[in-house]
């Protein structure tokens, strides 16, 4: 049953919907992808293409295991997701936070006034490259997908 409060301030201007179209569409797309990867198991061969880098070089790339990690996350299995690709799991809260900030900027119409310090992103680069190298080394099997 549709329940609308009398006198409630429902002032959703078409303008606001237009501004929310991009974040809303992104959320919908992300939900669709997570739903698909959750339903179609990447642990079974033949469902998804092999990582092109792994296929060509035989080495793991920083993204290897991300499909299985997303599949595990879709089923609420965080330890399994972490063992497949810890960086993918750790990037999820960051991506959600960036999405929230983006949506807020779209709503308020304000521009981005703050930029993360450069060293933070250089640090991210260092972490990704270290992860890339280490997960291919013996002794760091826990980082391999």
């Amino acid at each position, binding site marked *: 049953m549709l329940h609308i409060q009398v006198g409630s301030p429902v002032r959703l201007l078409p303008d606001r919907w237009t501004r929310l179209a991009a974040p809303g569409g992104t959320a919908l797309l992300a939900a669709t992808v997570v739903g698909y990867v959750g339903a179609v198991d990447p642990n079974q061969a033949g469902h998804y293409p092999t990582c092109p880098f792994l296929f060509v070089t035989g080495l793991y790339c*920083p993204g290897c295991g991300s499909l299985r990690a997303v599949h595990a996350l879709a089923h609420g299995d965080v330890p399994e997701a972490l063992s497949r690709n810890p960086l993918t799991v750790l990037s999820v809260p960051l991506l959600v936070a960036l999405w929230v900030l983006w949506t807020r900027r779209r709503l308020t119409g304000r521009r*981005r006034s703050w930029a993360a310090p450069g060293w933070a*992103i250089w640090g991210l680069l260092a972490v990704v490259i270290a992860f890339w190298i280490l997960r291919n080394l013996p002794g760091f099997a826990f980082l391999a997908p």
Partner: protein
Amino acid sequence: MSDYGAPPPPPPAYGAVPPGQPAGGPPPNNLVWAILTTLFCCLPLGVVSIVFAAQVNSKWAAGDYAGAQDSARKARQFAMWSAIAGLVIVVLYIVFIVLAASNS
């Protein structure tokens, strides 16, 4: 005389807009695309996108606004080409699967 040029200006107080900073805030660094291509799409080229994103923020913080805009442009172009490369790989894979299925 020092060979190292003028010392960098002191960092601005929190919330203050440094003099000479263009209106409109820092340019988009496409960090989200960089993370998505590197960690979710298995495209190691995404690390180059992270380099561009870091350049945007470093140059912006240093007051090199033109340089930051230039890095932002490169970051966007590179993200676009990564996305196209990803699409091409997926299409090639589908073609490969269909050909393999029709031959067996």
